[in-house]
C-alpha cells in the first residue's frame, strides 16, 4: 500500500499547480468570458479614507459601491441574485473607476465621468439618486430641499430612504444631504464616513 501512496505522491507533485499559473488562468477566464458576453458583473476592492470599498460593474457601467460595514460577501450573494451569478473578481476591468475614486479622495477630482448602471434602483428612489449629482461639490442640501427640487416637497422621508438605499454612494453624492438643522442624518457607510467626505470636500 505504501508504494501506491508513493505513486499518488508522484502524481500529486507532478500536477501541483502554482499560484502564478492559477492567476494567469484566472485573467484569461476574465478576458474570454467578457469577449463571449458571459460575464454578468466584475468586482474589485480598494482601500480608501473611509475604509475598504467594493466596486461592482456590469457591461452597462458601475452598478454598486459597497462599504465594508455592508458585509461584502453578503452583497456579492445579493448581487448574484439580482444581476446574475456569473461574477468574477476582475480588478483590470474596474481600473478607471478606481482611478477616479482615488483622484476624488485626494481632492483632485470634483466630478465623476463614469458610465453608471442604475438597474439596482428604480422609481422615486432612482429619481432622487440621479438628482443628487446636481448638489455641487463642497455644498450640502437638506432632505427637505431635495424633496422640493424633485417636485415632491412632502417626501423628505422618501428622500431619506432613497439616500439610504443609494447603490452608488460617493459617485451619486448622498453624503451631501443633511437634516434641516445641519446634523448629519444617516449614511450607509456610517456617520464618520459621511463626516470625512464632507470635510474632504470643504477642504479641497
Amino acid at each position, binding site marked *: 500500500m505504501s508504494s501506491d501512496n508513493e505513486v499518488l505522491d508522484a502524481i500529486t507533485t507532478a500536477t501541483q*499547480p502554482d499560484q502564478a499559473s*492559477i492567476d494567469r*488562468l484566472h485573467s484569461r477566464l476574465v478576458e474570454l468570458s467578457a469577449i463571449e458576453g458571459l460575464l454578468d458583473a466584475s468586482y474589485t476592492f480598494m482601500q480608501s479614507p473611509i475604509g475598504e470599498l467594493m466596486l461592482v460593474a456590469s457591461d452597462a457601467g458601475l452598478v454598486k459601491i459597497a462599504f465594508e460595514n455592508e458585509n461584502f460577501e453578503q452583497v456579492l450573494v445579493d448581487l448574484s441574485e439580482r444581476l446574475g451569478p456569473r461574477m468574477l473578481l476582475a480588478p483590470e476591468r474596474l481600473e478607471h473607476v478606481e482611478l477616479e475614486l482615488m483622484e476624488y479622495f485626494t481632492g483632485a477630482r470634483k466630478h465623476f465621468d463614469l458610465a453608471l448602471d442604475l438597474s439596482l434602483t428604480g422609481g422615486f428612489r432612482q429619481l432622487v439618486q440621479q438628482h443628487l449629482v446636481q448638489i455641487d461639490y463642497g455644498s450640502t442640501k437638506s432632505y427637505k430641499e431635495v424633496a422640493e427640487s424633485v417636485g415632491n416637497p412632502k417626501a423628505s422621508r422618501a428622500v431619506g430612504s432613497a439616500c439610504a438605499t443609494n447603490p452608488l454612494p460617493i459617485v451619486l453624492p448622498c453624503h451631501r444631504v443633511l437634516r434641516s438643522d445641519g446634523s448629519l442624518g444617516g449614511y450607509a457607510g456610517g456617520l464618520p464616513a459621511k463626516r470625512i467626505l464632507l470635510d474632504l470636500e470643504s477642504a479641497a
Partner: protein
Amino acid sequence: MKQPFEHVVAQHAATVLRVCRFVAGPNDADDAWAETFISAMRAYPTLPPEANVQAWLVRIAHNRSIDIVRSRSTHASPSETLPHQDSTIGLPEAQDHEIWISVAQLPPKQRLAIAYHYLGGLPFKEIAEILGGTTESVRKASSDGIKALRASIIKNSAQEVTR
C-alpha cells in the same frame, strides 16, 4: 441561492488544473482549463443549486480535454478513442517530472480513471458513467494504472542508481 462564479473558480481552479494536466498533458492543460471554465460559465445559470459542483466541473474538464487531445491528433489519424502512447504529450523544459513519460504510456482508460478518481475526487461509479463500462472495470483500470506507474517509477529509479 447560487454563489457568485468567482467562488466556484476559487474553490476548484486547482483541482481542475490537476485533472487537465493529467488528462490533456502539461502542454495543453491551460487550454483545457480555460475551455472547461468557459463552458462551465455558460451552463452555470441553469446548474441545479444542489449539484455537486466539483463533479460537474470534472465532467466538463473530461469533455474539453478529450476535445483538445482529439483535435491535436486528428491531423494524424481521426480516432474515436484517446491516442495511445505519448503522441500528444509534450514535456515542458521546466518540468522534469519523469512520471509524465510513464503517464503518457498508460492506456487511456487507466489514465482517465486515475485522473478522475485521485485528482478529481469522483467515485468509480460516476467515472463509469462518464467512460462507459462497469464500476468494477473502472476500479480495475485505476488499480492497473497505479501498478504500471509504480513499476515504471521503480524502473526509472533503478536506472538512476546504475547511471
